[in-house]
């Protein structure tokens, strides 16, 4: 019998206890993996290649104020800028105000939108049809699937921010690398129905030639409009998205404290199990020693057992997290970025192993050092 086999045999000596421990650690690690995935999605992922090449221009004071539409041509003239498109958040209601029926609606320019967002996949004839229809819209494929929309369907959206109700026709369905949960329609529609917003736009999305241009272009834009009546704030697409996360509150502290609680809970559960099984085996340990096992190898046996239990829990948790993450990715919105990456799983497993090690270290140290004769006398 090899040592590895000895460890695994021991790990499953009390099947019920091992299963419960693995399940308990597994669920804790599931949570840890999910939290790390959220963290990664918010703060570490750089987004798509195109995203790294885009900046978003908004009013310096607040997103709530709009910018004059003529800024677009001025931005276009800046060296390094490839395309500029306007985008106006409409914030209307589809069907009712239930959160599950909520999605983003942007008023934009159909002739240039897809030049700024080349990663959107859409058949050319659909683009053409959209550009010809002022009341046309293109919708995200995940959204179309969710609401069972087809090209040619009517889409009625009640205006909340603007006193305008949209009656759109779906002219195209686009597929984005990460679901956008958005529909795009012609901004002229709002202009005509509510002339007060004519000549104003919410934000401009700018595609630059290379990722290296981003910083310079952003600085030039803000510099150019510094003394204009409507100064601008230009940031990378990523930073722009992150500013919405920041509005949710202190998300970082929230995630970190949950992670801390979870890691500590794993330690407790694992330590509990190891304390129980080591105490049961006091006599065996003494026996092993009489057979000539050194203190170090006995220590190794127990620590190995704890680590393997924790790792099995880790694998279980990662597996569930992986399945959940894939399910969530199809929901779109902020969940779309919540794919569980192998590196996140790896970190979870390392944490699991570390907790297993810590939990077993102290009780097994005591067991390994215990007196042989007393150990042999030990009852139950």
């Amino acid at each position, binding site marked *: 019998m090899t040592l590895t086999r000895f460890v695994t045999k021991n790990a499953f000596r009390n099947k019920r206890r091992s299963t419960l421990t693995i399940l308990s650690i597994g669920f804790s690690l599931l*949570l840890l993996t999910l939290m790390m995935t959220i963290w990664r999605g918010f703060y570490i992922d750089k987004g798509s290649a195109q995203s790294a090449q885009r900046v978003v221009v908004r009013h310096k004071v607040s997103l709530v104020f709009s910018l004059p539409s003529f800024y677009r041509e001025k931005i276009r003239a800046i060296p390094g800028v490839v395309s500029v498109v306007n985008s106006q958040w409409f914030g209307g209601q589809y069907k009712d105000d239930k959160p599950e029926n909520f999605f983003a609606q942007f008023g934009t320019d159909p002739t240039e939108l897809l030049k700024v967002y080349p990663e959107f996949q859409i058949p050319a004839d659909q683009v053409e049809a959209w550009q010809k229809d002022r009341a046309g819209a293109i919708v995200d494929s995940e959204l179309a699937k969710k609401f069972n929309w087809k090209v040619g369907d009517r889409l009625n959206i009640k205006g909340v921010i603007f006193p305008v109700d949209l009656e759109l026709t779906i002219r195209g369905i686009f597929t984005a690398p990460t679901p956008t949960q958005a529909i795009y329609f012609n901004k002229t529609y709002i202009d005509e129905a509510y002339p007060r917003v004519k000549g104003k736009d919410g934000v401009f999305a700018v595609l630059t030639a290379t990722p290296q241009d981003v910083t310079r272009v952003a600085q030039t834009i803000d510099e150019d409009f510094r003394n204009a009546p409507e100064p601008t704030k230009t940031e990378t697409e990523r930073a722009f998205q992150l500013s919405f996360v920041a509005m949710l509150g202190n998300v970082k502290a929230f995630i970190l404290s949950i992670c801390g*609680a979870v890691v500590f809970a794993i330690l407790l559960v694992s330590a509990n199990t190891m*304390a129980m099984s080591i105490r049961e085996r006091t006599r065996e340990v003494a026996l092993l020693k009489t057979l000539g096992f050194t203190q170090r190898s006995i220590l190794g046996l127990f620590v190995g057992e704890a680590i393997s239990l924790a790792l099995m829990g880790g694998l279980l948790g990662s597996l569930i997290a992986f399945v959940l993450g894939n399910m969530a990715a199809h929901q779109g919105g902020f969940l779309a970025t919540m794919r569980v990456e192998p590196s996140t799983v790896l970190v979870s497993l390392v944490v699991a192993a570390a907790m297993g090690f810590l939990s077993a270290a102290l009780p097994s140290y005591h067991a390994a050092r215990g007196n042989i004769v007393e150990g042999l006398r030990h009852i139950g």
Partner: protein
Amino acid sequence: MAIPLSYNVRNLRLRKGLTIMTALGIALTVATAVFIMALLAGLNRAFGTTGDPLNVLVLRKGSTSELAAGGVSRDAMQVFKDLPGIAKNNRGEPMASGEDILVIVLPRKDGTGEVNVTTRFLTPLGIEMRPKVHLVAGRWFTPGQREVVVSKSINQRFAKANIGDTMRIGNGEWNVVGIFDAEGTAHESEIWGDINQLATDFERTVYSSVLLRATDPVSAAALKNRANDDQRLELNGMLEPDYYASQTKSGAPIKFVGVIVAIIMAIGSSFAAMNTMYAAVAYRGREIATLRVIGFSRPSILTSFVIESLLMSILGALVGLVLMLPFNNMTTGTQNQVTFSEVVFRLQMTPPVVITAVLFAMVMGLFGGLAPAWHAAKQDILAALRG
């Protein structure tokens, strides 16, 4: 006959280490759940206590937020002032306040970014209509001056929000001249300034909302209906408390994440509790058999072990609650899903939160204890005695 409770208490004490570790695990879960529930309770309190049932808020038709484009015209405001059922203040003025809302960006003091802050522009009459709001430092703004008064929470949470600081709103610098306290209502997240100065600066011709004070509840309902039914004015009237209550949906993201976190942690803790209880049953095989021999029935043994598990979970709940006590009343903020600006609120460990936390822990204890207790009760006496 029931096994005395002291039997369980002594057993838990005998196996101190195991009990404490399992209870701590439950405590962590409870603490997390309490934290999330206290956040939601604080948010609900902020919105739930805002608004007077006699106040009617009038917005543009189709709009659900004060922050929408378009609004209530000055003419419509005049119509309302003369309606029957409008209360008058002690100077005989009709209590109707035309207001405007803007959102400005302020940097957080702790350096975690810039957020939108709701800025309300109104007249001194509008201040008078909200008796819960009172000045704690400095003075109110002077009409016709670019002056603002900030809430206590804004003052504490944001840089550049002290008396003497200036804020850029539109094209002008506005001086901060005072700090008000809003008794934990939604106005706690606002900055207030003079409406007429704003109208001049921004060339605003409409109010984003009008607040009316009715003389009695019947008149309030009548005013609300009057606003809704007038085809010419195209307005949307609602009672002020209802408007703020609708904003409690801002807690939806916290709730969504919170429920998932709490459930997953609870499942994990239940398995841990089950483990501990199985161990307790296994150690006491002979003892249980002896109890049976003395004459305690199977059901009473089952109950006894379930109670022991429940006791352990209640201990966990208490520890969890104590762990969270320092966070009670802590001020925090999240995004208001209606006005897209920050709403500041305090964590509230209300009695329902505490009771729910204890019940939550007991569910974990019950789930963890039931199977082991069943196992204990089913044990064969003879085999166990020989154990």
